[in-house]
Structure formats: C-alpha cells, structure tokens
C-alpha cells in the first residue's frame, strides 16, 4: 500500500511535468510568433513559427478527442473548438498576410490559464520525473 506522500509525489510529478511541458511549449510558440510578427521578419521564421503553433494545437486536439481525456466536457469542447480555429488560422497565416496578434493572444490566454495553478505545488528535489500514474 502506497502512503500519502508517495501518492502525492507520483501524481504531483506527473501532473506538474505534463503541465510544465505544456507551459514551456506555449511559451516557445508565443516567443516564435512574436519574433515572426516583427516588421521585416524573415519569411522562414514566420513559416516555422506558424508550423509549430499548428503542431502544438494539433497534438492537444488529438489528445482531447481521445477517450479518456480527464478534463471536464465543457472545457474539452472549448479547447477542441479553439484548437480547430488555431490550426486553421496558422495555415492561412502561412499563405496570407494575416496578423499573428490574435493567435498570440489566444495562446497567451491558454498559457496564463495553465500557469495559474489551483493549488501551490511543492517542490520535491528527490522526486522522480515522469512517474507513471498510480
């Protein structure tokens, strides 16, 4: 029987690392999009930034659509909806001269939501990373 502390560590590590990965991914995408949104930014930069933004949302939407995603139904639907928009907008912005600002703002809002933890997570230097769910 696993005790509370172990269970806490396992879940905290998994949840935290997955959420931290998403935070890092959104931060990266936003940074790239902002660089690409500068006047005179090189076309290659824009193509790469929008490609990565698309891939991020595509991965999220696929996970959201699979049975067993643990988020509440309303939030799931909303994220799938946003994701489908973000994917389409990314592709159109590669082909046309669309502003990247709406995409940056949407990503920033999701990032802010991810960063706002409902409860403070304790740091545990001895924790294993990516422990499987108990």
């Amino acid at each position, binding site marked *: 029987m696993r005790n509370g502390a172990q269970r806490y560590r396992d879940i905290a590590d998994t949840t935290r690392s997955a959420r931290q990965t998403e935070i890092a991914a959104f931060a*990266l995408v936003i940074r790239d999009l902002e660089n690409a949104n500068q006047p005179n930014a090189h076309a290659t930069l824009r193509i790469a930034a929008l490609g990565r933004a698309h891939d991020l949302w595509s991965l999220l939407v696929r996970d959201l659509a699979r049975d067993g995603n643990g988020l509440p139904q309303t939030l799931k639907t909303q994220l799938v909806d946003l994701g489908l928009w973000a994917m389409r907008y990314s592709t159109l912005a590669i082909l046309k001269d669309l502003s990247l600002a709406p995409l940056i703002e949407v990503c920033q809002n999701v990032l802010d939501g991810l960063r706002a*933890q409902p409860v*403070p997570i304790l740091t545990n230097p001895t924790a294993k990373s990516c422990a499987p769910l108990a």
Partner: protein
Amino acid sequence: MAFSINTNLNALAALQSLNQTQQAVSQAQNAVSTGKKISQASDNPAIFSIANTINANIAGLSAVSDSLNFGAQVIQTASSAISNVQTVLQSLQQTATESGQTGISLTTLQNQVNAELNSINQYGRAATFNGVNVLTTTGDSSATYGTLNVVQGLSGTPYSIANQATTLNGAATTLGDALGITGLSVSGGTTGVQLTFDNNLAITSFAPGGGADASLQLTAGAKTYAFEFTDDSLGGGAIPLQTAQNATTQIVAVHFNSTTQSTNQIVGSLINAVQNTGFGVQQNTNGSLNITGQGISAASFGSVTGGAFTASATIGVTSAALTGTQAVIATVQSAISNANSIAANLGAASQQITGIQNFTSALSSALTAGVGALTDADLAAESARLSSLQTKQQLATQSLSIANQQPQSLLSLFKNL
C-alpha cells in the same frame, strides 16, 4: 516512516486536489467524449457509435489540417524562393542589357552572370522543406521527392502540386535548367532564333497523317528537335508521326485542331511543346517568337513526307538568327516568364489550400459549432479571443494538463531547437 505533511495546510489542500485529480483520471479511462460512461460498444451501442464517430472525425480533421499545414509550409517556402529568383532575374536582365554596350569588360559581366545563375540554383535548393522541394529535382538537392500531395478531406483524396522544375522542362536537373537559363553566356556563346508568322499561317493547309505533316525543326548542337503538327480533327490525336526518332532526332507531337482552334491557339500549343522540351520561348508584342537555350542555332519550317523533311516557305513562317545581346536578353526574358508562371502556379496552389482549409470549417461546425466553424477570419479571431479568456479561467481551476493522456507527445515540439 513517512514524513507528515498534515501540518502544512497548503500541502493538505494540494493532496486533496491531487487525489481528486487521480480519481478523475481513473474515471476518465472509461469515459468517452460525450461525457457518458461508455467504454464498450456493448454498454450502449448508439452512444458508443456517436462518440466514436465524433472522436474519429476530430482526429481525422487534425490529420487533414496537419497535411494542409505541411503543404502550406512547402508552398510558401517555394513562393518565397521564387520571389527571390524573380529579383535575381531582374538584375540579370540589367546585366544582359549592359553586355551590348561597348567598353564594358565581358569577363566581368560574365562573372556577374555566373554568380547570379549560381544564386538562382541556390534559391532552388534552399526551397526544401522537410525533404520536399517542388522547385528543383532530386539530382540537384537532397530533397527526397518533388511532388507534393496534400490530403484535402476525410475521404483522403489528395490534392497534388507537381514539381515545378520538371513541369517546365522534363530534362531539368536544377532550377536554372527549368528556367532555361543554365550556361547563359554574354560573350557570344548564347544564340537563339526568331520565328515570325505571317497572317496566313498555313499549318492547317497540310494534310497531317496523310501525305505530309507540318513540322518545325530546331537544330541545337548535334541534335535536331522535330515538332510535328498533328490535327486532332482528322484522327482523334492518334496520327502516327512521320519522322523516325533516334539518338540525334527527337520527335515532339504538337496537337491542334484545325476546325476548332484559331491560329493563336495553334501557336500557343507550339509554344508549350517547345517549352516542355527545355527551350526558352518568349513571345514578342508583334507575335513573333524568340526561341533560345540548349545552344539552338537554326530553325526551319516545312513538311515531313515519308520520314523526310522539306523546308517550305509557303507555310507562312520565317526564321532569323538571334545573336549577341539580343539572344542573351531573349533568354533572360524567357526565364522571367517561366519564373512568373511558377509563381502563378504556386499562387494557385496557395488559393487551393486556402479553399480546402475553409471547407474544413464546415466539418468543424458539425463537431463543435463554435469558433472553429466560423469562416470569416476577423469574426473568428474575435470569437477565439473571447473564448480563450473563458478557457483561461477554466484552466486555472484545473490541475490536469490539456493533453493528459500522452503528455510526452508534446516533447516532439522541442526538436531542432
């Protein structure tokens, strides 16, 4: 003995929250996206089927979007390259014009031309995106293939964008070959021919497939290219060509229809055939054609009877040699028109992908009926902004990550950083 965390209120709250999370995760193992607890078809076949269809459609839509996005990246990379090539060609035209002035070192000009030709091929090679390059051939770059297929719907029918280099010139290796500009020489090495058509173009007066085929013979180096006119109105396009093809003679059929096509259309077919064989063709404002490339030295119009070519003046086409600056400029102008046609093709492909992408919003509407389904870009952007604010609040009350089933899949985004 485990240490106690019960004295820390924050930690206690965290533990409760995480226990709930864990519960949610294990419950979620059995839940489907409708929110109903259906994990097998036998639990409730109807709901299971609907839920599975929606999930499959979202996954399918993501796959279509991935493919479209990849296509968009390839097309835009190529468009950006061809726009740079167009700039280089403008500068090359300037250089070619200068070659006609006395007192300018031809060696210096040639070095400049060589550098410009080199940069055109460099742009072609650099247009490789994830191993796909539609501007040059596998012989020239490490691109693995040159034709781009884009999935355009859940049915999986691909939309194809042909390799632009081999479309222009089947024998091309580099982008320069495709544009017909490889080996451009300002010091007299570049030659061309000019064909002038009189008003009574008499191609139709020949009896193709009968006694004689009208034919344009181009001499380029040791090779002869015979463009033989075949009248589709007479034999449904299955007319046998008259001259035998061998190592030094290449036969190209030019299909036309004497009953339905105008002279201009017939000349248009000839232009396409000559271009597809790798020559540069530029139509002048008076309707005459400048043909350059591959060391072309002479052109002759006539007829072919029983495998033998006889030049004929009655066909209404006269041929004159283009040399020196005239030939150099004609070659560059033809390359410019080729680059313009590549740019136009890429623009059309871009339009097509935009169209397919907008169509996918119709599929989205069946799935979410929300922002993802709006086709008006401004309206959708504004709705997405508002919707993301709500999402932000809801995410803030969640401990779970968004991709909570395969969170490690996101690590692929950090490749090549």
